[in-house]
């Protein structure tokens, strides 16, 4: 089986993000493997255990630095990596076309994993666009996967925690959700092994992808300024606990 995992090199969500020139962030912060993609890579490695001759290829589009994210994916189980290198900030149409072209040039996918979204742009489009370019079925927020009789049986989580189970013909595109697995983080020996795995770098220009029929670009980025109104909760520990429960139920409405 050829298993492709599309991964993204994203800023650490814990970083102090500063906006430069209204349309981009200051990239002098830590970048790492998109957290949803960790579930995608982990699931690919799980699948490989059931289909031993499989080849897991991590694919990433980004700047040269994106190679670090490919190394992370390889430490978590990918066998080799493909970097589509570009300094440009691409919309999901271009990204999907580039990833599609890189995969076609490389081989013949039986299954393509992605994360259900990237935590930086949160577009949730690229996986559907890849599916459309291949003409493969796509489901997202997958929380379980089983390959049965040459089909993928996938349960997806919908809004409110409901689930729906699909049977998909292979090849297909699956967007991994948090419920799919616990990421299998690498040990130091895994990191050592990943250093020896091959990465192929392709420039975006060399793929010669035709321009998309439309485009989307960021014209303004506004940071979220959180207004905090701290309030001291007084009383005995029991009274404080009661007040916290009241706030969570009535004000924040996060528990019933």
């Amino acid at each position, binding site marked *: 089986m050829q298993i492709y995992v599309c991964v993204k090199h994203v800023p650490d969500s814990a970083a102090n993000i500063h906006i430069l020139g209204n349309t981009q962030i200051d990239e002098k912060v830590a970048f790492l*493997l998109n957290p949803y993609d960790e579930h995608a890579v982990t699931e690919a490695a799980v699948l490989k255990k059931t289909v031993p001759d499989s080849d897991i290829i991590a694919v990433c589009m980004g700047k040269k630095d994106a190679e670090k994210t490919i190394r992370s994916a390889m430490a978590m189980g990918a066998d080799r990596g493909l970097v589509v290198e570009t300094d440009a900030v691409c919309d999901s149409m271009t990204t999907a076309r580039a990833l599609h072209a890189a995969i076609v040039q490389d081989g013949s996918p039986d299954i393509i994993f992605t994360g259900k979204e990237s935590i930086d742009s949160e577009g949730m489009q690229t996986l559907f666009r890849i599916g459309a370019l291949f003409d493969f079925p796509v489901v997202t927020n997958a929380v379980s996967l089983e390959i049965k009789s040459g089909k993928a049986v996938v349960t997806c989580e919908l809004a409110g925690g409901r689930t729906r189970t699909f049977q998909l013909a292979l090849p297909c595109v699956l967007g991994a959700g948090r419920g799919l697995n616990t990421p299998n983080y690498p040990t130091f020996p895994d*990191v050592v092994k990943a250093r020896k795995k091959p990465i192929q770098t392709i420039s975006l220009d060399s793929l010669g992808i035709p321009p998309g029929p439309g485009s989307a670009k960021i014209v303004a980025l506004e940071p979220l300024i959180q207004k905090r109104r701290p309030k001291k909760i007084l009383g005995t*520990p029991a009274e404080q606990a009661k007040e916290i429960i009241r706030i969570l139920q009535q004000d924040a409405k996060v528990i019933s």
Partner: protein
Amino acid sequence: MNKKYDAIIIGAGVIGTPIAFELCKMGYKTLNVDKLPDAGEGSTAGSCAIVRAHYSTEDGVALAYEGFKYWLDWENYLGNVTDEKGMAKYMNTGSILLKSEGHDWRKVQKNYDAVGVKYIEWDLDTIKKHVPPIDLHKFWPVRRPEDPKFFDEPTEMLEGAIFCPEGGYVNDPALSAHNIMRAAEAKGGEFMFNAEVVDIRSENGKVTGITLKDGTQIDAGIVVNVGGPHSFKINQMAEGVWEGCNIKTKSLRHEVMYCPSPEDYDYLNDGYHMSDGDIGCYVRPEVGNLFLIGSEDPDCDPQEWVDPDEFYAGKGGHGRDNVLTDEQWKAQCYRLGKRIPTLQVPNQPKGVVDLYDCSDDWIPVYDKSDLDGFYMAIGTSGNQYKNAPVVGRMMAELIDACEKGLDHDKEPFQYEFKYTKRTLNVGFFSRKREINYDSSFSVNG
């Protein structure tokens, strides 16, 4: 009329609170002022709260070992005070010092013998029996993952370890300072929070009080600088104090990581505190079955000296602000990953970034100053948490002796340890000392 106290202590961390507690017990009317909202919320909260005795100097070992006795007897030490937040707990895991080139362990062992610290020597089989997932290869010298040699296969083995059964850590360092605050209050001590000091007032070479940012003036004939990473700024506010110190302090950025323990190892309940100079790390268990991974500041790692106000405001950019860096996350976790090969390292860094109040020779300054009535307990360099209760008592006695006429600079105060009955020459911690080259010049002290 300005409010008046016998002593104002600037800072309510784990060193400032016991100084107040001990001065109160001696009859002084004290006030602690702190710019943060509660006791222990500053760099104390970021402390790893390790309680171990291995130091590079005999006095350092003696002071730490005296400290053990306080932590082992925490409730009694605090006069069985109640704290509505609960009591900090001493987790007496025992402390492993791996014999390696990263520590002058022979000197430590000599100091242990001189002070009478209880310890057992462990061979490799014994270490393995106590720490099943450990790999005891020698990985020295400490390198960074950016260096290709970091990944070289080890060929030699370590020699063994020195195990100190009384060592361990305190489970909640901020809470421990809060506990001491409650004990000080029970003896009449007062605390003022959200109060930033902007001036130390003095007249005719004698301290007279402090001025807060909102203009409030508070008077006292004794002012003690326990400002942690802000200590050098506080010293600069007091006439002639900064200039009168041969040993200066500055704040050093430091990252500590939290990495999950391997699933088949209950590190939280079965683990030990361990100092591993061979990989430049120290570790202790943390809630959630995590490894807390600190760095022993190997020479290959960058040192970032920062302005504490800028740092805590999140300024300074990558590697200088209060956010963990991917580079240091990998350095510390992968170093431990060599020692614990089944340790799984997440991609996103998790941990604490805080500041050391670091002195020129990494040994603290516990002293008077060139301004009468102004004292300092500073330069704790990331390694004095464990000594806090002893330092509280020692500083209170030093202050009392100086106020009663002792010229500590000429005739250094001799502090008698309550438990171990040794006498410590407090002049060892003098601001006027020459740099102590016996120091490890690291967090090891």
